[in-house]
Structure formats: C-alpha cells, structure tokens
C-alpha cells in the first residue's frame, strides 16, 4: 500500500550544526520524487529523516513533522523500528549481509522479525527477487553468499531485501552512484516498475537520472559553507528541467553552478 508523505517545517541538526533548514514538501503516493543538489546540501540528511535513520548518528536531532498519510512518524508514541518497517531504504553502496545467502538476505527483514514459515519465506524471496528483476540471474544459486554477486546485482538484491518487508514508501540514497551504466539502467527500469506499487523518494547526483525516473524534483542548495541546506524549489520534473522557477535551480541544472 503506497502512502503519501508530507514534510512540514523540518529542521535537522547534527549536534550544534544546523544541517537543514525549514523543509516543507509533499510526496504523493505511487510517484517518484527526486532530490537533487550539490554535495553537502542536506538532501541525504532529509531522506534519512524520512524513516528516522537520521537519529542513528550520535547527537542528531529533528524538529518539525513528517506525516505518513497524516500520521506523524516523530510523534512520541511512535516506535522508530515500526517506522523503518513501513518506510524502507536502499543505500548508496550495496550492503548485503555478508554472512547470509542470497535467499536469507532477501528474507532477513521477515526472518528477524520472527517469521519462521519456510514456505512463506521462499514465496517472499521469489516474489521480491522477481520484483527486483534479479530472479532469473540468481534462481539457481539462492544458497550462495550474497557477497559473490556483482555490484549491480548486489544493489538489486538490496532492493529485493527492502521490498520483501512490503514497505509503504521506498527511500533510495544515490542507489546507482557505485554502479556502471548498464547496472544503472537496470535499476532505473526497476524504479519505473516499482512506482506502480510504491511511493519512491530518490536522492541522486545524476541530473539525467532525475529527469529520466522522477515525476517530481526537489532542488536543495546551501548558501555557504557552515550554513544550513535549504529546499530551493520543488515542482514537476519536466518543469524543473525546462523552466525552473528559481535562478539557482537553473544555474545548477545547466551546469553554471558556483
């Protein structure tokens, strides 16, 4: 079940450092939202705050609200573990669990939450691997370690692992930055597939990628070193890349940045 995310007046801190300032943004369901912007502008930090991964870093702090279908994930009664079960994440570098087989990697989320029924786990493993376009490549070696796959396959394995727990939203933090163009294409095709069922937010440094896969694009920027990052504008991807509302956005996407 894809759900919508509403970010309201979000301020993010690392200790005393104000990393991101006053971000408000709506992410519609079954839609791909891309975050673009220069390094250090806080787009990954915002992404990590959407499933409460930001607070894992020591001293990290969040102000403001993130609503998942109207429910604040930062409400004091909400368990961050539950939030992360509902809002999945794929990371920059593929990170399969090295001690587990391909199959065990995919079902790790379910197995470690107490699902023991082997038949069900096998079903989920197959469905998720098919969903991540990896099934045909690995179906004969499900018991081999996940670390033996190529980088692109590992990243799709991580996507399979993330969708195996059937999240409502999928967050992707530069999922292709460590991959070659062919693997990147495979992941981008996959994102377009996944959009039918999931709400997706993707951080990317590759503007062509943002233009190719996303429906809506948010441009983040920072005014100077030590200043908090800001959301400059968010709009339909087509509009951002053809006729952006802000000069900073136009400079960035046309390469005249800084």
């Amino acid at each position: 079940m894809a759900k919508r995310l509403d970010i309201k007046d979000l301020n993010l801190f690392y200790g005393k450092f104000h990393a991101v300032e006053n971000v408000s943004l709506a992410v519609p369901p079954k839609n791909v939202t891309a975050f673009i912007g220069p390094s250090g502008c806080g787009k990954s930090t915002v992404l990590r705050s959407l499933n409460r991964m930001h607070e894992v870093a020591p001293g990290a702090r969040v102000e403001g609200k993130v609503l998942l279908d109207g429910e604040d994930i930062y409400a004091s009664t909400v368990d961050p573990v539950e939030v992360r079960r509902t809002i999945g994440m794929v990371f920059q570098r593929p990170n399969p669990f090295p001690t587990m087989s391909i199959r065990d990697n995919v079902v790790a989320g379910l197995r470690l939450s107490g699902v023991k029924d082997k038949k069900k786990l096998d079903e989920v493993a197959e469905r998720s691997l098919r969903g991540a376009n990896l099934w045909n490549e690995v179906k004969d070696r499900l018991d081999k370690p996940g670390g033996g796959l190529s980088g692109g396959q590992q990243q799709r394995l991580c996507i399979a692992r993330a969708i195996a727990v059937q999240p409502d939203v999928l967050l992707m933090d530069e999922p292709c930055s460590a991959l070659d163009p062919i693997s990147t294409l495979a992941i981008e095709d996959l994102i377009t597939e996944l959009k039918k069922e999931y709400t997706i937010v993707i951080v990317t440094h590759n503007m062509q990628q943002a233009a190719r896969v996303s429906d809506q694009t948010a441009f983040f920027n920072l005014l100077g070193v030590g200043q908090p990052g800001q959301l400059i504008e968010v709009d339909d991807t087509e509009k951002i890349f053809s006729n952006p509302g802000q000069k900073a956005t136009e400079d960035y996407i046309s390469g005249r940045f800084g």
Partner: protein
Amino acid sequence: MSTNLADPTRLATPPTFQSVSVSRRIKNGIATGLVWGAFLIAIIPLVWVLYTVIQRGFPVILDGDWWQKSMSGLLARQQGGGAYHAIYGTLVQGLVCAVISVPIGIMVAIYLVEYGGRSRLAKSTTFMVDILTGVPSIVAALFVYTVWITTFGLGRSALAVSIALVLLMVPVIVRTTEEMLKIVPDELREASYALGIPKWKTIVKIVIPTALSGILTGIMLALARVMGETAPVLVLAAYAPFINYNLFDGPMASLPLMMVNERNNPTQAGFERIWGAAITLVVLITLFNLLATVISRALAPKTK
C-alpha cells in the same frame, strides 16, 4: 628523424627511463639486509625452543601411559607415571576460566562498541581494560589470594585459579572483540535498522555473526595464553600427584605446576617429566589454535 623503426633499441631521443641509481641500489640492499637480519634474529630462538622441546619431550609423550596415568603412588626417582592429572587440571581450569570470561568479555565489548559511544562510563571502562591488560599474572594471583583466601577464608582450589585467570583473560577478549566489532561496517547496521530490525537483534543476528570468526580466534588465543600461566597455579592451587576432579576443593595439578614441581626432582625421571609436560602444553595450545583456525575459516563471511 631517421629512426629505424625495425630496431627499437636505436632511439633518436635520450631514453625516458634509466636504470636504478647506485645510491638507491645501496639503500635497497641495506634495507633488505636489515629486514632479513631481523627476521633471522626473531626466528632463531623460536626454532631453537621448539627443537629443544620436541627433541627432549617427544620420546616422553610417545608412551601411552603419559596420557592415561597420573603420578599417583610413584616415588620421585621412579620412572613411569603420566601427566593425565596435569592435563586434566590445565584443561578444566582453562575451560572454567573461558566459560566465565567469554560472556563477560563479549558483553563488555558490545557495550563499548554499540552502546557506550563516547560516554564517561565507556571511556573509564576502556581505561580500566587497558590497565588490566598490563597486569602481571602474579598480581592477579595475589589479588585473588587476598580476596578469596585471606578475606573470605575459602581454601586454595582450582576454582580460585580459574578466577585469577579470568582477570587475565577478560581484558584480552574485550580488546579483540572490540576490534572485531569495530570493523563491521556501519552500513550493515543501517541496512538492518532500515528493515525494521531492532538494535539488539541487529547486534545478535547481523553484527556478531559477521565478526564471529575474528572473535573466536581472539578467544582461542586468549585461552592458549592463560593455559600456560604459572603464577596463578603456583599461588592458588597446591600440586597433587594424583587426579583430583573436584574443582572446588583440594590440590589440583596442571602442566605448568607439574613442571615447577618436577624441577625439584633432580633425577632423570624428573628431567623427562618436565620436558614431557612442556611439549604436552605446546601440543594442547597448538591444537586449540588449529581448532580456532578451522572454526573461523568455516564461519568467515564467504563470497563464493
């Protein structure tokens, strides 16, 4: 430019690359000589010790009685008997020590790496573990003697030895486990959290299995070290030439203690027993190390 293309050795321009200069060759020679020299100096005593132990001890342990009999009922100068009682003592004291130390050590390391962060408790724990690492075994033995025997009035026993060994083993296990947990990438922890797996389960099911082979090697090495400790057995357990299964009471032999005891025996029999006990200890520790290697190979993360 009339360079003959068929002959690559004839170049119109001076070559870009020249042969290694004399001064670099000399420096390289000196450095190579020093490295080899250091290697030989380090290896000579090792080979020498091993050779002496094997040459003098090997004939002794070939006798089946050595592994099956104690020294019970034998006079000092009599040949025969065995080290069964001492092997039992060394193994049981080492294992009891490991059973106590391993959970404590691993849990302390988990606290330091996963929970402590830069808190004051974590810092002072690290500091104390560092100090404990440097405590000589005789100090640990005397400490246990003071608390266990002088203060609580309990008798000398194998258990007291094990407790003194715990003091020596815990810091080693904390240190190695800490290092192993630290090299588990944070990305794996984050991947696990992002699947909605709670922190404790992430540690138990993801972090520890990833680091397990290294942790196990550390445990085995620590065990090998404490099994050879002499001071605690000397202070905390009297020597018994017969087998004593009772951990809690009475004298119990161990291999280091048997060697110390037989040193007072000037006869040929005593001489043989010292070397026999020495090689037995070396063999036991080698077996533990081999076991550690085999297990950690089996547990190490694989890619194929």
